[in-house]
Every structure is written in structure tokens, then in C-alpha cells.
């Protein structure tokens, strides 16, 4: 399987992912009223994967 990658697009996607992570933190606090170690580890893993997902979707818009 070929994994497409564009540095410029990934940087943009990473920022989007970070914003989503902040919203996620707020939601976690609102729903459960606390943060756990699992939330920190889970978020650290989820942010790059989500960034790559968004990056791949954004690549559909690119001409190359």
C-alpha cells in the first residue's frame, strides 16, 4: 500500500487536528469532569493519526 504524504498539507492538517484535540479536551472535561493518564496517552496517539487522515482527505483537492 502506498501512503501519500505532502509536508505542506500535513502541517496544515496537523493544526486542524490540534484544534480538534483542544475541543476534545473540553468535551472530555464536560462529560466526565476529569482527565486521566489514558486520555493523555490516547490523545498523543490520536492527534498524528487524525492529522494524517485529514491530510489524505485534503490531498484529494490537490492537482498532483
Amino acid at each position: 500500500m502506498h501512503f501519500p504524504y505532502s509536508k505542506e498539507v500535513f502541517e496544515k492538517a496537523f493544526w486542524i487536528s490540534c484544534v480538534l484535540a483542544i475541543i476534545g479536551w473540553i468535551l472530555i472535561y464536560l462529560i466526565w469532569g476529569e482527565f486521566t493518564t489514558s486520555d493523555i496517552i490516547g490523545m498523543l496517539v490520536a492527534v498524528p493519526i487524525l492529522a494524517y487522515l485529514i491530510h489524505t482527505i485534503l490531498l484529494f483537492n490537490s492537482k498532483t
Partner: protein
Amino acid sequence: MMKKVSKLLLLFAVQAVGLNMYAQSVYDLSGFSTPQDPQAAVRCDLALPALTYGANGNWLVSTRNANFVGAGASVELANDVTVPNYNVSGQRVVSVDYIGQQVFGEPDTMAIVYMTNAAGNAPGTVLRKTSNKGGTAVKNGGTVTDELPVSFTLVPGQTYWLNCSGANDPSNTATARWEWDGTAANPGAPAFVRYQPGGAWGGAACAFWTPKASCAFLATSGPPNQALRLNICRNAALTLGGNPVPTMTQWGLFLFGLVLLTLAVVTVYNFSRKSAMVQK
């Protein structure tokens, strides 16, 4: 064409992530794996305000065969309480603290009885009996805490009569006794009493539950009500009898879904690139 696909995929990704989060918040209990307010024996995700009627510095003996001024004298007290209704789903009284004094030795046992509210606001049918010897109650100094089992529910909004007494064996001639703190704060009917004279404690017996004010010998003893505390939780029953799901399980499932979604999008992207190349 590619822009449309991109928009559709973005919509699908947002929906999938949103549904995943919604499902976790609605159906999973693992968020409760670290309770905010653990009770003595029952865990709950959130403690609701306890109903407390504190002591006012006076107390009255509530012990069978108390023997304190002669053999055989017994006084038992019962107090009514109306369970508050917070209109919160899963509200439950998890334990009751009977606030009192330990005087001289320990009574042989502590007996606790829950009764309905009979017509005329008096102790009615017995709903449950327990003790601190083989039962669910624990005596710690003057405070007796009864952890209510899941099978027994004090319904919000309902009035109950609660009786807590020390119980000495008839052969026990020691002066061990438990005394229930008084309070003027508890609304509802004044405390009821069962009284058996003995030794220097005289007057007429009140063999059945009688308003304290009508039981001549004890009519003026202590405040009108007895001190206690109802500890109330939200969703208390949901974590009983099982181990909470570790929070990591939720994250594991979320990440698994996210990776699958990413691989699916990459596959679609690769296919779209291939078809674009063929068209060229």
C-alpha cells in the same frame, strides 16, 4: 469530481468521529473508573447532597437491656425521614449514618430496622432488618453506618421510619449502651419510642411504638428528633457488583476505528490516483 469525493470523505470522517465520541459518552461507564466521591463501601460517579440532621448536643439512650440504672431497662427510638427527590436519573441512597454516642462498653450488637410510614405518621410495616454482626451495618465509635444493598431501595420522595438501637443479650448485665444524638432540625413527626422500665427507671412501659411526648417517663427527655444522615449518589447501582471498564479500552476502540478509517481513505485515494493516471 475529486473535490466532491473530498467533501464526502470529510463529512464521513467528521460523522464517524462524532458518533464514536457520542457512543462513548452515552453508553459506556468506563468514564466512571475513578469515582469522584467514593462512599465507604459503594462507589458512585457523583455524590448528591446528603440529607443531614446533625446533633444538637443532647442524646437519649437507644439500647435494649441497657442496664444503666438497673437490669433490664430498654429504650428504643425510631425517627422518620423523607428521602429527598433530586429528580436525577439513578439517584440512590447508598448508606445511612446514625449519629450517636458510645457510652461505657460496646453493646453486643447494633440493630437497625427500616419501616414504612403508617397512617397518622407512625412506624408501620417492617421493610428491612440488619445489624453490625453479620449484617450490613458498621459501628465506628458513636456513628453507625448502614450500607444499603442494591436489593433495598429508599424511594425518593417517600417517608420511612428508621430505628437504630444497641442490643444487649439479656444475660449481659454490663452497662454498655448506645445513645442516639438528638436534634430539633429533622422535620416531620417527632421521634417514636418503645420503652421497658427496669431497675431505677420506672413509669409505665410503652410496649409499642409511641410518640415520645406521649410516653410519660421519657416525654421530656431530649430534643424531639434524632440525628442521622442519608448519603445519596447518582448512578450508584450501576457500578455495583462488577469491575469498571478501564478507560484505556475506550481509547483503544477509538484509535482502532481511526486507523481503519485512515486506511480506508488512503485506499480510496490510491484507487482515485490510479484511475486518474489511466484516464490521462
